């Protein structure tokens, strides 16, 4: 029953902003490529992107293309739209991003029966349009 599967929040209500340091992530998302902020000096990953590598303080950044898969680290199951209060099954999740050790992404699991979601489960990226022509990564069954 598709009615029991997790949905996205309404994309026309989701807003983001960017700055010099974060826009690289969102530019790649428009190309439907999942990336994460990598220090160009020491190779360590960090998310969200910030101007300095917390390990070596370098400001140089790479945006490598990643496999687009992730592992569920934890999640919540919510039943009401935070915008309208209407019934809406959605699953915010904290994900370990494959290919970017140490980097996590807080995203949504879409198209899941909530009873089937488990910590440690593999999921894969999908792309979802939001306001101002930005594209948001969400995650679907692998």
């Amino acid at each position, binding site marked *: 029953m598709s009615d029991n599967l997790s949905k996205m*929040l309404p994309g026309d*209500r*989701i*807003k*983001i*902003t*960017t*700055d010099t*340091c*974060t826009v690289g992530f969102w530019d790649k998302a428009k190309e439907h490529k999942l990336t994460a902020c990598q220090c160009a000096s020491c190779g360590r990953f*960090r*998310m*969200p992107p*910030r101007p300095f590598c*917390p390990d070596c303080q370098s400001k140089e950044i790479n945006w490598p293309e990643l496999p687009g898969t992730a592992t569920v*680290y*934890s*999640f*919540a*199951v*919510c*039943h009401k739209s*935070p*915008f309208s209060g209407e019934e809406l099954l*959605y699953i*915010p*999740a*904290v994900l370990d991003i494959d290919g970017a050790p*140490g*980097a*996590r*992404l*807080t*995203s*949504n699991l879409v198209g899941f029966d*909530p009873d089937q979601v488990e*910590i440690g489960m593999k999921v894969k990226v999908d792309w979802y349009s*939001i306001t101002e022509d930005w594209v*948001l990564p969400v995650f679907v069954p692998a």
Partner: protein
Amino acid sequence: MTWEHQDKTAIVGVGATPYYPRGTSEPRTIYEMAGDAILGACEDAGINVKQIDGFAYYSGATAGYTDKMDTADFMELLGIPEVTFTASLTSGGGGSAGAAGLATAAIVSGQATYVVTVMALQQSKSRLGTVFGQIAPDPINSFLQPSGLVGPGHLMSVLARRHMHLYGTSRDAFAEIVMATRENAVNRPTAVRRNPLTKEEYFNAPMIADPLCRLDFCLETDGAVAFITTSSERAKDLKQKPVYIHGCAHGGTRDWGRAFAWMGMPDEAFASAGNKPIANRLWNDTGLSPKDIDVALLYDHFSPMVLMQLEDYGFCERGEGDAFVKSGAIRYGTGSIPVNTHGGQLSEAYIIGMTHVREGVEQLRGTAVNQVDDAEFALVTGGPASLPVSGLILRGDK
């Protein structure tokens, strides 16, 4: 090594307004409520409000995150002629217990004599739990807010689930925390929720952010609480039995700093209340251990964070919170460590941690409604929230 300011200062007065369900304190204003709490604290201490010369806030001196409280306004409001210290711990409710340490810093450094800490809350304009979607998030929160983790409770639900996954922690333990806390509120005239709660009612409550249901979330209330700190020397000449600031710490680790943002911390911090470094400092500074504590007043904005604080402070081992709580250990009257004997924020009122300080003082004066026999040491914690987190050990005169 013993903290050099141990017992050098004391809380000598506490004042509070009644506690109101959210939005029902009007037509009272937030300044009127805060002023009443401060005047009440002065009367309790036996000092004149004009003797106040210091303010030690937390939560950036905001009143419930939406209103601003300013020292100049309080001075005008109450006729306080001059202040020699006015400062705040940063961020939010994490600093509620730590504000007593800020007051201590003012007093032992000779910068002030009577320092007031006050919090007032009136949630008619916007609710703390649901400040969402009105404005676009900043570039960093653009990595969090689109997921629909709309408030602190949603963030804490993700932490709680990880704890459940790692240690087999159950909702039965959260239910026990909520029921034990409610039982403590039944006989309290100040409490907003006083009906005893059954396990069946708990499990019938709607889920908000599974694994958390509505009853795992604290109350939404209006009101104000203030307390006055002074030197232990001066305290001896005042009206009440002094309640000494025996240890106090605020701060926290970078790992925990991620808990209200991008969730990047390792398991040890993720499935915790972020209070472990505070606990380590308090036990080290005081030479006490959990078994010395007579009553624990743990910031209970969300029930799982009570369980994780019990672990952080070492009342039980990491991962054993579930069994510890379910054994009845936190029950007033029968448990080994009575927790939130005032009904906490889950059942009495939510004034961003201040009701816990008030209860700590009453317990150590021997005037609490649910008095713990011969209570000598009380642990009071600030919110497992954005840094700083904080903890306070109060000592009563035996």
